[in-house]
């Protein structure tokens, strides 16, 4: 249990630093910055009690907002996907109830992992960019940016998850 708290705190801090010091300055093709910090939501252990998960996700988003001067955009978006994570996972696995404690993302098949990560990423990015542009006139731009940034984020997070987590 203690080990779990330690490793999650470590992950929290390293995701914030990775995002604000490196990934926010990549600017691929001039404007694409992957938002890999949402791997927090993919990897956080699934429990019946969700309050800790919701609060830490909110704080993670808020820390990113502090660094990038963006109001509460990232906090709102990551909180949204944090709340809907379990329902999406259940829909993808087609199970109404599963063993929370033994759940491990790496034990799923690759297409399920991809579907899970892609759905959450696209939801998150759409909220982030809608709130950032904050106008209906920019709808096409929002969709375009959402799509390209999502592709970039999905590739990086899947690679990251396969490199840095253990398969039991």
């Amino acid at each position: 249990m203690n080990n779990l708290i330690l490793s999650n705190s470590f992950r929290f801090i390293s995701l914030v630093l990775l995002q604000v010091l490196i990934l926010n300055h990549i600017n691929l093709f001039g404007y694409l910055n992957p938002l890999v910090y949402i791997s927090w939501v993919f990897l956080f252990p699934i429990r019946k009690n969700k309050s800790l998960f919701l609060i830490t996700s909110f704080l993670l988003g808020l820390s990113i907002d502090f660094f990038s001067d963006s109001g509460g955009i990232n906090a709102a978006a990551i909180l949204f996907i944090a709340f809907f994570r379990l329902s999406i996972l259940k829909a993808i696995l087609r199970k109404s109830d599963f063993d929370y404690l033994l759940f491990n993302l790496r034990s799923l098949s690759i297409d399920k992992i991809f579907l899970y990560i892609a759905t959450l990423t696209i939801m998150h990015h759409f909220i982030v960019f809608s709130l950032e542009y904050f106008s209906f006139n920019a709808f096409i731009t929002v969709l375009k940016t959402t799509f390209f940034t999502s592709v970039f984020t999905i590739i990086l997070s899947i690679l990251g998850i396969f490199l840095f987590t253990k398969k039991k």
Partner: protein
Amino acid sequence: MQQLIYFIKKFRYFLLFVLLEILALIFTINHHSYHTSKFINSANFITGGIYNKMTSLNEFFILKTENKLLIEENIQLKNLLSKQGINAPKENYYVNDTLKYFQQYEYSEAKIINNNFTKINNYLTINKGSEQGIEKDFGIINSTGIIGVISNVSSNFSTVLSILNENSKINIRLKNSYHFGTLVWNGKNYNVLQITDIPRQAIIKIGDSIITGGKSAIFPEGINVGVITDFKLENNQYKEINISLFNDMSALGYVQVVKNLKKSEQKNLEQETTNE
């Protein structure tokens, strides 16, 4: 009462979610409506400190370009100085000790420790704050052009509303005439900005230089901004005047903070005049 408690218990995660989401949206809307966010900004001890550490590491790699810029500015200033010598007649030339009395602008140096140019609303962070005499609405320039206006100040750091921001509006004018307009950004290319409100009487050509207008009490008059690259003429009105910046907004290092010493005097006078 029992039912209320049961209701809260049943929907406690949903209620927590809604509560936090509303909090985040309040921050977002605050940010969009006041142009500066009161709580969520990178001008604080932790974020400023981390950016500062990171910049001192990066600084090593930009020394070469910084030096080149300094030399260019030196040459420009020396040229200006040598022109002064010719223009000023000897008999009228005197040294005034009470320089401060007539001085309107004061410059100090600062360093950009966080630079953004890809979003639609970009903010920068500099390593000086209220303890170094920085206040809200001071201008930020460098040797090649203007960069932005201070928006939030903490004791040792400040955030800057970049000219690459939807809320930034800066008074500019043509170099060869006194027609003035407003510098805005459409959020597309970080090197191309737009000018609005140019009166149709103004004659503009591609390649005309744009300088600051000096009407806003933030920037002194005559700082270089950029050149006109293209424009459209519809119904005798200028539309979509694009300018390309002299400044490379993607590579900013050391900058100068401009303090207008007579700002409050000007503002008070203008306030009184409109109140009458």
